[in-house]
């Protein structure tokens, strides 16, 4: 019991919260980046432009079938070979954005495919151009179908930021390791605390998604 009280001193908790802040900040930037990039990639793959779409499709399939950890290593240790040396924060954001945008591209594409093709035909028959029909008719309907998959992707993004500990991103996992590295009696309390912190962030997001679904559905 005393171990727990010592481990949860304000200094340690404050240090963990700093880590949580880095985790959340990196996640938010990556979520925004990968949502934008992923939507663009997914739409390009769907609309079937000559040459461009197959190339992008291949890129998506390759990246999404690799482990995120490999992409993080590649950005942090591989890119310096090409003369580009990102900091650990930017390397994480870059790796996460590239990896997650290919996952989101697949979600967006299958969301669009799931919309009744009659919607597109109807819109075209009513005089809308292909682009207008896609933007005003298809995408809003696809969006509704995509929400659960998108949110669970964002949740796994938040959890996966913990992998960047290995390139010394000062995130929640990393800071916890620093704290329990000083005193081995802190190990169990630290693990419980970071599990709770990750849980709260991820669970809150999944509750939010469920209420969003209800309101839109």
């Amino acid at each position, binding site marked *: 019991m005393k171990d727990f009280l010592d481990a949860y001193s304000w200094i340690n908790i404050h240090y963990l919260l700093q880590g949580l802040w880095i985790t959340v900040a990196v996640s938010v930037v990556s979520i925004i980046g990968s949502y934008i990039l992923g939507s663009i990639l997914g739409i390009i793959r769907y609309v079937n432009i000559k040459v461009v779409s197959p190339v992008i499709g291949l890129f998506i399939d390759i990246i999404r079938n690799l482990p995120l950890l490999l992409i993080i290593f590649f950005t942090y240790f591989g890119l310096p070979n090409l003369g580009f040396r990102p900091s650990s924060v930017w390397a994480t954001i870059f790796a996460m954005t590239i990896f997650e945008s290919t996952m989101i591209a697949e979600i967006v594409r299958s969301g669009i495919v799931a919309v009744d093709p009659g919607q597109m035909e109807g819109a075209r028959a009513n005089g809308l151009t292909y682009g207008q029909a896609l933007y005003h008719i298809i995408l809003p309907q696809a969006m509704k179908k995509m929400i659960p998959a998108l949110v669970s992707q964002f949740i796994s993004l938040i959890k996966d930021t913990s992998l960047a500990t290995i390139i010394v991103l000062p995130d929640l996992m990393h800071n916890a390791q620093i704290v329990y590295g000083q005193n081995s009696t802190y190990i169990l309390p630290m693990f419980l605390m970071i599990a709770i912190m990750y849980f709260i962030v*991820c669970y809150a997001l999944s509750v939010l998604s469920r209420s969003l679904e209800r309101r839109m559905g």
Partner: protein
Amino acid sequence: MIAIFHNYGSLLLQGFGQTLLCSVIALVFSLIIGSMFAIFETTPIKALRVIARIYIEVFRNIPLLVITMFFFVVIPMFITKINGFTAGTIGLTIYTSAFIAETVRSGIQSVDPGQMEGARANGLSFWQAMRYIVLPQAFRYVIPPLGNQFINLVKNSSVLAFVAGFDLMYQGNVIASDSLNTMSTYICIGILYLIITLPLSYWMRYLEKKLA
């Protein structure tokens, strides 16, 4: 790149084998545990439903790395020493089983409830009806999502690199620091991962189209 394959062939092969081995072990156990919790969630017994719900929500919302490190760092302090490979495989099993439970549960719920009622009306017990009537139909729906879980499992097995599990990613780091050619090494590792995941992912897409 060819030089990497040539000079470090045995290390790469060993890592490839370990990655495949731990993925298959974790898949088998997480299928068993996941299906068990999925059935718990659909039983009429409230206590079982609550237990299953808690298990799934807890392990779906905690990073795999935290679970794995827990088994690698905390368990040896209190219970028994376990090596990195075992800790990683246990972590993967627990993490993946929560996702598989969700997948199988939605499969069970997509089976017409009349099937269960009909089976019960014909004198089968709940477990018999589940085993012989509902689950065989549910598994048909869940094969593509389960395949995707297996792909995720193979990719997630790279977490073994954190706990010295001698998997592909771990050997990749060893080779990268030995050969000093990080770019080519990671490309080789990537190719080896794609050999497992890419065919699976195309196969699952084909099955999804066929079953839809």
